[in-house]
């Protein structure tokens, strides 16, 4: 019970945290691009866009920052047995994240927000790039730590049976990490560009500031298209890596109970709940699972049953099959929505090529609503990754059931779970109110030349 509650809490807080992180990473990069365009062209519209999207960025950043604090503390609060066991390896990348990434990101964000017209242009541009780099670095360290839980490397067990780090290079060349990191960065760029596209599309549809937002709509499509193409390739590659090191994760994602060769991929299934080993799989696409899991047309995929037998032999009795229902559907949410976004990107690219991007009402209308998809995909991605690791907290080394804090009662966790949910609802509501308000309120400086000139004398929206 206590363990389950601790898991619920971690899942809730980390999923919530990860609504904001990809927006920060993606949007910081895009704002840096906008400001670079301003720096090089000196066109005032790029400055206005950088400030406009910069305001949306900081509304998001602060929630990402404060909910990240919760994540950092939660290991020790809820998972003290885990922390004690893995701190030697897992703590290092976390501390590196703080020292190398968080300081950078937060200090230069402060300099950027308050530095308009105070810092030399070139220095001020460097500030937003350092924010973007800092946010990407923080993802790097946290994913190195997380990948170690998926596929532990670079350690040896000491006399107490605890893992001790013996190779930092192994930690950062872990294949799960390398592909997982690229996957998350691309996902963040997809998120950021879809946010920018949605806001721009909203203005374009209303016919407000068309000349201005045509620029940001174009930029977001230019970023989105190559990134989503690359992402589909990288996601596929990550699947192969996971099949190699965590075969349960991928077998469960297809609800593949028996081994197969070649293996087909089902488009849908009916059933497949907790004890349903024979769901009806609908529209089977031949060879697709083989290709996804092994990269080969006729690749073999081990089923859950033989894997379970293997694990029992190796680790003793127990259930080693993760929740198949979650695996199956989170894989599909990601794959299907990813495909839709690919189509949207291609469509946008074609409109861009024809020069009608800012006039296509249908495309713009769909783009406004497409902003929901990256959040669903990001969440599905983490569910696939973390649920697929169960019952392990560190694959092969420690089970989740042994990892929670012995001194913390279920009452404690109930209290904190409820508190976090209430606080997060309040933060989410406040964030949403401001995001919508600032998205719609219009861009500083008003329309046209007079507005741009007036901007210089008015208060920046980003100061207090």
């Amino acid at each position, binding site marked *: 019970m206590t363990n389950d509650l601790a898991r619920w809490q971690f899942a809730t807080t980390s999923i919530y945290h990860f609504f904001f992180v990809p927006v920060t990473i993606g949007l910081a990069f895009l704002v840096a691009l906008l400001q670079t365009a301003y720096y090089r062209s000196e066109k005032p519209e790029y400055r206005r866009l950088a400030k406009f999207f910069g305001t949306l960025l*900081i*509304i998001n950043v*602060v*929630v990402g*920052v*404060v909910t990240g*604090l*919760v994540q*950092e*503390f939660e*290991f*020790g*609060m*809820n998972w*003290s*047995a885990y*922390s*004690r066991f*893995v*701190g*030697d*390896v*897992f*703590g*290092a990348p*976390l*501390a590196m*994240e*703080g*020292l*190398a990434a*968080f*300081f*950078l990101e*937060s*200090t230069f964000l*402060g*300099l950027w*927000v*308050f530095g308009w017209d105070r*810092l030399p242009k070139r220095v001020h541009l460097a500030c937003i790039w350092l924010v973007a780099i800092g946010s990407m670095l923080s993802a790097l360290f946290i994913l190195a730590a997380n990948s170690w839980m998926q596929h532990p490397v670079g350690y040896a067990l*000491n006399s107490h049976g605890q893992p*001790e*780090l013996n190779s930092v290079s192994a930690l950062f060349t872990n294949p799960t990490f390398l592909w997982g990191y690229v996957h998350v960065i691309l996902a963040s760029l997809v998120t950021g560009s879809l946010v920018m596209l949605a806001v721009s599309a909203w203005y374009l549809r209303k016919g407000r500031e068309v000349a201005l937002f045509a620029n940001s709509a174009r930029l977001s499509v230019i970023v989105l298209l190559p990134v989503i193409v690359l992402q589909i390739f990288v996601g596929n590659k990550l699947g192969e890596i996971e099949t190699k090191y965590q075969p349960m994760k991928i077998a469960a994602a297809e609800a593949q109970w028996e081994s197969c060769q070649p293996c087909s991929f089902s488009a849908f299934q009916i059933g497949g709940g907790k004890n349903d080993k024979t769901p009806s799989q609908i529209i089977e696409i031949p060879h697709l699972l083989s290709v996804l899991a092994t990269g080969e047309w006729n690749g073999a995929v081990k089923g859950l049953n033989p894997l379970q037998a293997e694990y029992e032999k190796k680790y003793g009795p127990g259930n080693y099959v993760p929740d198949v229902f979650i695996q199956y559907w989170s894989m599909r949410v990601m794959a299907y929505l990813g495909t839709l976004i690919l189509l949207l990107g291609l469509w946008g690219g074609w409109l861009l090529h024809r020069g009608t991007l800012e006039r296509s009402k249908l495309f713009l209308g769909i783009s406004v609503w497409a902003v929901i998809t990256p959040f669903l995909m990001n969440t599905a991605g983490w569910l696939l990754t973390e649920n697929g690791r169960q019952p392990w907290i560190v694959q092969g080394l420690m089970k989740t059931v042994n990892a929670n*804090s*012995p*001194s*913390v009662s279920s009452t*404690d966790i109930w*209290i*904190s779970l409820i508190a976090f949910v209430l*606080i997060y609802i309040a*933060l989410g509501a*406040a964030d949403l*109110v*401001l995001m919508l*308000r600032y998205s719609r309120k219009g861009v500083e400086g008003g329309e046209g030349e007079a507005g741009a000139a007036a901007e210089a004398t008015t*208060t920046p929206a980003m*100061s*207090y």
Partner: protein
Amino acid sequence: MLHLTTLWFVVLAILWVGFFVLEGFDFGVGALHMLVGKDEAERRVAVSTIGPWWDGNEVWLIVAGAGTFAAFPAWYATWFSALYIALLLVLAALMARGVALEYATKRDNERWLRAWRWALTIGSLLAPLLIGIGLGDLLAGLPINSSHEFTGNFGDLFTGYGVWTGFTLLSLCLLHGATFLKLRTTGAIRGRARALASPLGWAAIALLIGFVVWTRKVAGGPEVPEPVQVLAVIAVIFAARLTAGDHDGWAFIASGVAIASSVGSIFIDLYPNVMVSSTNASFNLTVHNSASGGYALKLMTIVVVIFLPLVLLYQGWSFHVFRGRLRGPPADGEPAATVASPTPQT
């Protein structure tokens, strides 16, 4: 040769000192901003004094926590799980405060504004108080068994010494915030910061002297205070005295020294323990029985040696860029619309 475990204990002490010196004035400003600013325009100026920095300052806490995790996993595990509900409150306070700092002025709505103003005030009071209690408890001792598990409940966290430490650090943060506000503002806001600094200074002096005496008792050993504790008392007296005059910079430095030496003294008296067990002294967590292996410590030492000086450099630069006083709201008769943008005085 200095052992790596000892070195890491020192690194963590430095991180905690850094956190309180920097975030200390942010807490102080947050807690006092409704008192030094009588209307919304003045409150904006007060909060703007920490605008570019508070987020970077908070990272010191994150790194202190993560550094403890990396260098002393057993300490991190026992401490954070023991403080459970207290840390929940700390997190709530830090969340309320952080979001309030960014969101308060982003909507023209009276209720919205008032809610975030109070969130900022209460969060800024609660966080240093509770973190102070958590630090004091390390030395005071908590019920910890032979397998280093906390066996007490929420009430056990309120050790007498821990609570006194909490209030001492809170009072120092308030004083530090007042000296900071006085340093960075002009006119009425600066005047109110000065007026507040006097009672806050007296309270801090009294609490700090009590803290030093109690620390001697709790730590055992010689009754003579450590040099750093003497320094803390001298510094807080200087800070309280100097705020009455016009030596704003010196007063701020003095309150910074007072807060740094108070936090540092906890760690000096703690070593080589990291967490005292009130159940049995042989169950104490020490730098030896809670540390990571040699490889991890060596790696982290390299990382700290490279990155900490860099951080000091660019954070220092950021302080340099935004130095100078913020001009208060203009006198009567000027349009309110131009009020909200505090600009540095030349």
